[in-house]
């Protein structure tokens, strides 16, 4: 009885960024890759969307202050 966790309303949208998009984000925030927030490789969503260590996820979630909010996370090893 496995449910699709990605469809749960409390799970925000996770998208794996392409290499060029990662560069864009890094440049925009003016940081090194390592300074991004992290996410564990055994995180259920990471496993579900088959993200690999070193990938950067774009996370779009609902926000009580801003309405919609976008953040990024680096998948750990």
């Amino acid at each position, binding site marked *: 009885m496995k449910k699709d966790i990605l469809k749960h309303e409390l799970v925000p949208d996770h998208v794996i960024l392409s290499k060029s998009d990662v560069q864009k984000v890094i440049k925009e925030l003016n*940081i090194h890759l390592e300074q*991004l927030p992290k996410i564990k490789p055994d995180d259920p969503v990471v496993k579900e969307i088959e993200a690999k260590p070193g990938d950067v996820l774009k996370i779009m979630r609902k926000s009580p202050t801003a309405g919609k909010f976008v953040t990024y996370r680096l998948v750990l090893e």
Partner: protein
Amino acid sequence: MKGILKKISQINFGLMSPEDIRKMSVTKIVTPDTYDEDGYPIEAGLMDPRLGVIDPGLKCRTCGSKGGDCQGHFGSINLARPVIHVGFADTIHKTLRSTCRSCGRVLLDNNEIKNYHEKIEKMFKNEESVNNLIKEIYTVARKDKCPHCEEEQEDIKIDKPVSIVEGNYKLTPSEVRERLEKIPDEDSLILGVNPKVARPEWTILTVLPVPPVTVRPSITLETGERSEDDLTHKLVDILRINQRLKENMEAGAPQLIVEDLWELLQYHVTTYFDNEASGVPPARHRSGRPLKTLAQRLKGKEGRFRSNLSGKRVNFSARTVISPDPNLSINEVGVPEIIAKEVTVPVYVTEWNMEEIKKYIQNGPKVHPGANYVIRPDERKIRIYEETKDTVIEKLEPGFIVERHLKDGDIVLFNRQPSLHRMSMMAHEVKVLPYKTFRLNLCVCPPYNADFDGDEMNMHVFQTEESRAEAKSLMRVQEHILSPRFGGPIIGGIHDHISGAYLLTREGSIFREEEIFQMLKHAKVPLPKKTGKNWTGKQLFSLLLPDDLNVVYRAEICRKCDECLKKECKNDSYVVIEDGVLKSGVIDDKAYGAFSGKILDHIVKEYGTDRAREFLDSATKLAIAGIMKKGFTTSTNDEEIPQEARERIEELLDKAESRVERLIEAYKNDELEPLPGRSMEETLEMKIMQVLGEARDKSGEIAEIYFGMENHAVIMAVTGARGSMLNLTQIAACVGQQSVRGGRIKRGYSERTLPHFQKGELGARARGFVHSSYKQGLDPLEFFFHAMGGREGLVDTAIRTAQSGYMQRRLVNALQDLSVNPDRTVRDNRGIIIQTMYGEDGVDPAKSDYGKVVDLDRIIEEIRIKSSK
């Protein structure tokens, strides 16, 4: 000032090996004696001069620097037999339990070992905490048979504090050490001991480091007697027993005696580290006082960390009782002259301020705008005395620094504990005043949460130009009128400011022009042209408002009528301000009160903090002038109701009581309809509570009929100045149900609250309903129930403050290094991103409209007024 000698690039936390301790040691300490007959320290004793010097006149024999510059040098004691370090007793126990008693390997099979190794490596690489993994390993690595050498394992227990028992045999520290030595490096890593910085056997001491004398200085009493530090006392004990143990061992004394001495050595070393270890009687001084040993120096609120490193005592600060002064501006603080003469401001002498500073020095340390010290360019600090001040003035040159008294206009930091939010520390302008208390404007009581029942506050004087500039632009009181907690004013009128403004501005409040001008003078507002006519209070108040101010809101006194008549409201509670003129409505808590002032909020946001401070200062002063003109007082006469009302309330309560009886009757006859999801008992309780709650409210409503707006207690309640209508009805009509743990009172005697009742009685009186009013007085039973409810309230607040204090401490420690960068990202001290946009919307709540970026409704309403003209 000394420069930085070396820069720290890395800190390792590990254990010291016996070799490390010996290498660090400048001398072996052998004799328990400290000084010889002439009072000179004995070589190889605990006061050996090679351990460093304190006396500034002497030179250190080890490092060659003078006393004060020499930080001291460690010595060491060779222990005759090894002993266990108390701090590691638990670690030793867990390690032994998870390793083989014969071959020393971890009690895991090769596969598991490989697995855990990989996991740990990975976590190291990700800079993750391995604590939880190590904990897991300690629970998994417990087997009856060694997977490596097939040896049967025995149960190992710890007998607090330091005895390790295997089966029934107590292991000696030497045996424990041997076992720990056998653990291979690879396995020790899995057990949480990184072989790069520590080895398990180093938790057993063979050499004891002796801290330098600078760590345990002796003090000379007035009698000339020397008194040694507690640590020195403890080290003497250790040396004595160590020597006796060594002698006995060498003389081949019986095993039993050697073991006893060994135990004793263990005891002394244990208490040397921690004199509050569980299961050990604390070592005591001759006077019976427990000794303060190493752990006691560090632990707890009075320990090194919380008392000397996280927080310190500081110079240029003052503390005294606070009292109110309505004549000060909110930005000011009244400082007693004696404090102003004690805490000083350093001023650089230049050609331009030479004359002024000479005047201060001429006044000397005892006359108020004076000076206490002069600091020459060579950093020599010279105290100014009555006798020396003339010579000091002669020698004064540009480049000197003079520490002059605090004077009017200086910026200081003012603080009240507990400092729970940033408004607990604000910058004020000094006003030097007579007497001995700090004085502050009443509007700043809410942010400090201060009152004048004996509260004390602290003041700090800035010592640099930079700090003064920063404080003036960021920390001044007027910059904190709006709180980041809810985006509204936290500084504002309270109590009589509110009642006064209401009396001034309510309908029918008319003054002669002389009266108006008197009040304006009192409020220090420039006088307008004479009109020769009478003024209304609304006209008077309008003088304080900015000329183009437009605001509309419902006042605190609004009764929330079903259909709002707006400007025609009979309570005059619809406030309309058009172009800075108060057209309708009264001024009350909602206008400029702390936490809810709409006009104040508007002025800060639209006209800036300077204008807001000006408004608040003059509005509060005007309100005080008004309340003094009208006269304002209250007593229990305000809560008087006629006999006829009393009788109606009595009747009402009787009716309620019989309804309760009927409910109980129905419950007993099983006729009660249970509420969904509730038992019969719960249903009954809920229904009774509801009936009695209604009864109290109704009785209050009866009393309220007689409470008109001429009643001062009522004015205070409805304008939001102080108290509530509930308070008044409890005084006048009925106090109502007392509760403990959220329900009616049921604890006490078996099946009843007091022996005056039947067992199982459920009636209103038997369960803590107070019929009387406070003014009538409570009967003894009511009084007792009231005390029960009151006590619960007190206990709850005491517990809540303790709990929330600890929560705050943890939160602050977790968040202290986060900061908002110019690009609005939130980062920690390593530059790692926590939020890509502060608060996700990038809004500073202190500058927001009650938390939102904009309040569209408000703006639309204002535009409507403007365009309707």
